[in-house]
């Protein structure tokens, strides 16, 4: 099968794109994804792989590699804004990173050996799940948990009425969920931010603000664990990762600037619909063996 036929099959216009044109399209698409991802809090990484694989016919393994380096860039770039607020819990972050990095190692290992169709189907399912809205517990009062106290995870965070202390619980459950979040991150090249927040907020009882800021800190380290493997195994292509990473970084930086001034429920709905459509397409293309 010739190159042109492959492109046609994948729904791309029947002419062969040059590297410059393709890089430009990827850069713009990644910038929009990063912008919407940061505005809606869903993260840009989740639409990068479908954009590259479904939209541009890129092999899903290259797409995962390019997406993962973008995840590191946005997580590390956003850290400054988060830290200034003084919410994150560095001990909890580091302890749970043991789980996420081990999970990410396993996830990356699965990506190296699993057929791409299965990866595509799992990706689609995760996309669909990511649109389910959760009601967060928002730091309800708990009794002191002996294991959490021993690991010194209890801490305090700033509120309008001064420092508010909190106690956390269910450390083994949170640890297990973090390992799963790490595995999905390594397997699919995404940040798994929502699942990390879920594990901290719902399972462990961290206040919501503490969960989101600590989760952002963890995303970069988690992604670096699997990115090391993907780099060694030749999944990170410089020509493809370059426009993806620069685009997402630009988009998410702009998104973070306007975040505080814009009401976003409508935007979130639009982004959710896009994600559902992409999820169904990923599953369909995986099942029919086209990815």
């Amino acid at each position, binding site marked *: 099968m010739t*190159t042109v036929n492959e492109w046609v099959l994948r729904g791309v216009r029947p002419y062969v794109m040059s590297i410059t044109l393709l890089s430009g399209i990827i850069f713009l698409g990644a910038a929009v994804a990063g912008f919407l991802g940061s505005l809606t809090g869903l993260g840009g990484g989740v639409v990068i792989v479908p954009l590259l694989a479904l939209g541009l016919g890129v*092999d899903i393994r290259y797409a995962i590699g390019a997406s993962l380096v973008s995840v*590191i860039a946005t997580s590390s770039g956003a850290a400054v804004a988060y830290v200034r607020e003084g919410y*994150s819990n560095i001990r909890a972050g580091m302890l749970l990173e043991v789980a996420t990095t081990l999970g990410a190692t396993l996830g990356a290992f699965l990506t190296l050996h699993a057929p791409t169709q299965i990866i595509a189907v799992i990706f689609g399912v995760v996309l669909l799940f990511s649109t389910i809205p959760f009601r967060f517990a928002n730091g309800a009062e708990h009794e002191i948990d002996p294991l959490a106290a021993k690991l010194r995870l209890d801490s305090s965070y700033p509120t309008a009425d001064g420092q508010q202390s909190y106690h956390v619980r269910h450390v083994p459950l949170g640890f297990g969920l973090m390992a799963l979040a790490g595995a999905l991150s390594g397997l699919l090249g995404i940040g798994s931010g929502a699942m990390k927040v879920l594990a901290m907020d719902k399972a462990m009882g961290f206040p919501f603000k503490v969960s989101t800021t600590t989760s952002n800190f963890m995303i970069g380290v988690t992604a670096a664990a699997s990115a090391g493997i993907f780099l060694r195994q030749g999944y990170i292509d*410089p020509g493809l990762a370059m426009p993806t990473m620069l685009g997402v970084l630009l988009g998410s930086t702009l998104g973070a600037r306007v975040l505080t001034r814009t009401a976003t429920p409508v935007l979130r709905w639009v982004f959710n619909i896009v994600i559902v459509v992409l999820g169904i397409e990923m599953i369909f293309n995986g099942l029919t063996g086209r990815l």
Partner: protein
Amino acid sequence: MINLRERWTDQRVEEVISVLLRTGVVTAASVVLLGGIIYLIRHGASVPHYHQFHGEPPQYRTLKGILTDAFTFRGRAIIQLGLLLLILTPIARVVFSVAAFTLQRDRLYVAVTLIVLIVLLINLLWG
């Protein structure tokens, strides 16, 4: 005199880490951009082959390969150096955390952080 343990409060550690992360990302992105410009000038008109997976050649996969190849000033080699710097940024953060917990004399978290660091280094060097 203020001792080291008091100076390195959690909040101070986080501030230093966030500056470290931002510096790493800005440096990495600048190197990637420079490499990208050289790459597009030299190869922008050719046709990419991303629809089929080949895997990258050895000079884009190992630390030694990336470091030596970057000095040939080829676009893709410079981009890959930038991406390596990006992957090293969170790892540098973990290294700094080991030092910070050591200064705080927090043995438990020195051990926890070392586990994370070992996993990261094994994956990058032998993964």
